[in-house]
């Protein structure tokens, strides 16, 4: 057994604020600024905050304290890696193997997280260099760019795009190297120094963007494409397009798409391709309402074609909409929006759309609206307008009963609120208390808190192990959690959704909420928002830089547990452990980058490791704290050197409520998601290979843990307390 003098001086945090910012940096990530606003706004908005805060108090903060206390206890015995810490906490041969999850989770999450981080860097650099200028304000240009950059439609596109590699590969390698450079410099000179600079910068950038969004003036509602596309493309092309439209039919084919709809889609594709190629005659800055919501429905196309064929006399439709917007008060508009959102959800859940009655006041307002609409349409000149009149009357009739699939999108047009920030904040905060009866919303709130605070990763466990034996963990843990919540609720909640509404309107905002796509919101929708914003390019630089910083402060924390494991378990020096881990994570990241179609490997790793395994590790930690260590000893441990005391009520909460809550959420979440994921494993060979890869890697880590435990014994680690 090695003597005390043989042991190297253990690494420790230099300052208290350093460790707080490092843990907060680990927790603050893309989820705070993109996932939270989308999830909250789609799940009852203000009402979502009730289960959210309850989850924070019963799940998030208690588990943070548990991890901080357990990590510091492990560190006192000279062990910094999760398997080592577990072997100290629970003297059982199996404990170190359970702790191996604390290695698997951060390392595997790093393999895909670093790639997402590189997207943020690529966007920040792209905006700074002006590379996004040609895209103008058109959302399709950003969608196309993002799809091409990430290869979301074709596997391997990042490595071979017409014989060339995509630039994103270099951003990925640069981001990868930056992470390892920070980690190579060590705990204090690397992670702590970096987080002490990056976290204030990140918060400053977020405040700048939030202030910009909150001070935006009201935006005009743009003209629909049939009135604005002419100004955006060359005259000969417009003529050809008009001729094609005149000869095309509006009747939907067997796939539900009409030739007119396809012509419009093709024209938009051609337009954005031309913008990408910087062809002359194409104007990127024409503001137009693209075919979304009602405009993308068969009735919307009928109206558009009729307007074009009437030579502009079909303005009656726009006037009708304007009348509706002036006539309906905001409460009725919100009622219509709620109906729209529910029906969108019903569409997803049911094979056949199910109608739903409007509230009486909404119906009454719509009656007067319909009367006015008929008056307006009565003055429309002849020619092709009977088609328009007939179709709109059909639409009106449809509105008089429950809304149906094709007509319901008209509600979006009618409920268009004035595009102010105040109304945009309504999407984030106007409560829909009815959703609280839905267990799914409670599950989402608990999941958001859980993932956002980075509990169950094994990272806090590792970071806390570098504390001194009498360093505070209670106030530090609470401060790190509060910082994360500030970034999430107070900054993240004020930017993405209100800005999307102000510039892109109701239809796009509802569409964003319906899909709940974090990447869609972050890399397709928000770039369009910035393009519409005065000096938006520079706010976009600030926004994507802050996302990059938020990402990198998280990803470096994912590397440290494995570095600690290699150093303490195999006696490797920093350089050797950094090189070894670099090779392993690069090997794992390559399939993530290569199998880019629908981000299949990324999504699979995120489900099985980034979500499923997290629940398991967090549950084990809470059970060890409350039941193996014992709640009294656990709280004594937490209170050693504490600068504030944990309220008494948390003793029963940590022992009973938190594990029960965690298990309930875990079972419900698995019940909801696992069947679909298991089906994917059976049907998709890439998913199967990814899951097999996770299994092999976990097996490899278990083997390493077994070997490392021999080294701990040889060094005498874990037997008695060491260090300051």
């Amino acid at each position, binding site marked *: 057994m090695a003597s005390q003098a043989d042991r190297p001086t253990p690494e420790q945090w230099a300052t208290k604020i350093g460790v707080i910012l490092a843990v907060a940096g680990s927790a603050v990530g893309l989820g705070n600024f993109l996932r939270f606003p989308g999830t909250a706004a789609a799940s009852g908005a203000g009402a979502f905050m009730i289960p959210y805060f309850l989850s924070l108090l019963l799940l998030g903060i208690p588990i943070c304290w548990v991890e901080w206390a357990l990590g510091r206890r492990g560190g006192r015995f000279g062990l910094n890696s999760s398997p080592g810490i577990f072997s100290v906490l629970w003297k059982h041969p199996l404990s170190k193997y359970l702790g191996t999850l604390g290695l698997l989770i951060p390392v595997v999450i790093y393999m895909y997280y670093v790639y997402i981080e590189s997207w943020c860097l690529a966007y920040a650099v792209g905006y700074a260099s002006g590379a996004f200028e040609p895209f103008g304000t058109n959302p399709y240009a950003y969608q196309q760019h993002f799809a091409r950059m990430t290869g979301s439609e074709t596997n391997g596109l990042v490595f071979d795009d017409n014989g060339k590699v995509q630039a994103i590969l270099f951003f990925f390698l640069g981001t990868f190297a930056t992470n390892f450079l920070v980690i190579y410099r060590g705990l204090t000179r690397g992670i702590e120094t970096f987080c002490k600079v990056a976290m204030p910068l990140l918060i400053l950038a977020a405040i700048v963007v939030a202030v910009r969004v909150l001070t935006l003036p009201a935006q005009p509602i743009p003209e629909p494409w049939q009135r604005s596309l002419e100004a955006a493309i060359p005259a000969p092309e417009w003529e050809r397009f008009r001729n094609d439209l005149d000869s095309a039919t509006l009747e939907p084919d067997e796939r539900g798409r009409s030739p007119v709809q396809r012509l419009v889609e093709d024209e938009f594709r051609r337009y954005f391709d031309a913008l990408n190629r910087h062809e002359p005659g194409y104007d990127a800055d024409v503001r137009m309402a693209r075919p979304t919501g009602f405009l993308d429905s068969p009735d919307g196309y009928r109206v558009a074609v009729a307007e074009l064929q009437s030579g502009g006399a079909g303005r009656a439709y726009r006037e009708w909409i304007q009348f509706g917007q002036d006539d309906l008060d905001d409460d009725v508009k919100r009622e219509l929006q709620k109906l729209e959102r529910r029906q969108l959800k019903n569409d997803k859940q049911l094979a056949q759309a199910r109608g739903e009655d409007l509230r009486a006041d909404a119906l009454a307002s719509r009656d007067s609206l319909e009367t006015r609409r008929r008056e307006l349409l009565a003055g429309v000149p002849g020619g092709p307008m009977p088609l328009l009149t007939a179709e709109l009357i059909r639409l009106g009739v449809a509105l008089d009963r429950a809304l149906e699939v094709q007509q319901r999108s008209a509600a979006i047009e009618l409920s268009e609120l004035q595009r102010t920030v105040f109304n945009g904040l309504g999407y984030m905060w106007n409560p829909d208390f009815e959703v609280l009866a839905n267990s799914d919303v409670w599950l989402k709130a608990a999941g958001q808190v859980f993932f956002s605070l980075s509990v169950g990763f094994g990272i806090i466990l590792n970071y806390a192990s570098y504390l001194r034996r009498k360093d505070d963990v209670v106030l530090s843990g609470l401060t790190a959690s509060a910082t994360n919540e500030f970034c999430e609720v*107070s900054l993240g909640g004020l930017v993405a959704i209100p800005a999307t509404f102000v510039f892109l309107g109701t239809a796009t905002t509802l569409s964003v909420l319906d899909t709940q796509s974090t990447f869609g919101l972050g890399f397709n929708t928000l770039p369009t928002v910035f393009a519409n914003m005065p000096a938006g390019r520079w706010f976009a630089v600030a926004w994507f830089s802050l996302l990059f910083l938020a990402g990198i402060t998280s990803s470096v924390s994912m590397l440290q547990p494995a570095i600690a494991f290699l150093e303490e378990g195999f006696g490797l020096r920093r350089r050797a452990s950094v090189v070894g881990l670099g090779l392993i994570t690069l090997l794992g990241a390559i399939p993530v980058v290569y199998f880019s179609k629908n981000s299949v490997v990324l999504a699979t790793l995120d489900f099985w490791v980034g979500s499923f395994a997290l629940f398991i590790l967090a549950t084990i930690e809470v059970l060890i704290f409350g039941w193996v260590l014992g709640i009294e000893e656990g709280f004594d441990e937490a209170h050693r050197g504490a600068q*504030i005391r944990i309220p008494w009520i948390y003793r029963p909460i940590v022992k009973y409520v938190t594990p029960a809550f965690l298990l309930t959420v875990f079972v419900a979440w698995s019940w909801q998601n696992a069947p679909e994921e298991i089906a994917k494993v059976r049907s998709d060979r890439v998913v199967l290979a990814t899951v097999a890869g996770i299994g092999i890697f976990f097996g490899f880590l278990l083997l390493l843990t077994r070997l490392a435990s021999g080294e701990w014994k040889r060094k005498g680690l874990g037997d008695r307390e060491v260090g300051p």
Partner: protein
Amino acid sequence: MNATGLVLMIASNAAIIGLVVYCFYRVFSIREPEKTEHAPLDIDTRDRD
């Protein structure tokens, strides 16, 4: 935004910002022991014996 939404937004942000301010106030107002306290051997009593 309606009145209930406004109340919820203000209450949520007040709770979070209040917690952050309290935590950082406590963190910065409590001086770390090693800077203020000295072990007996660190104290020079000027005793020559």
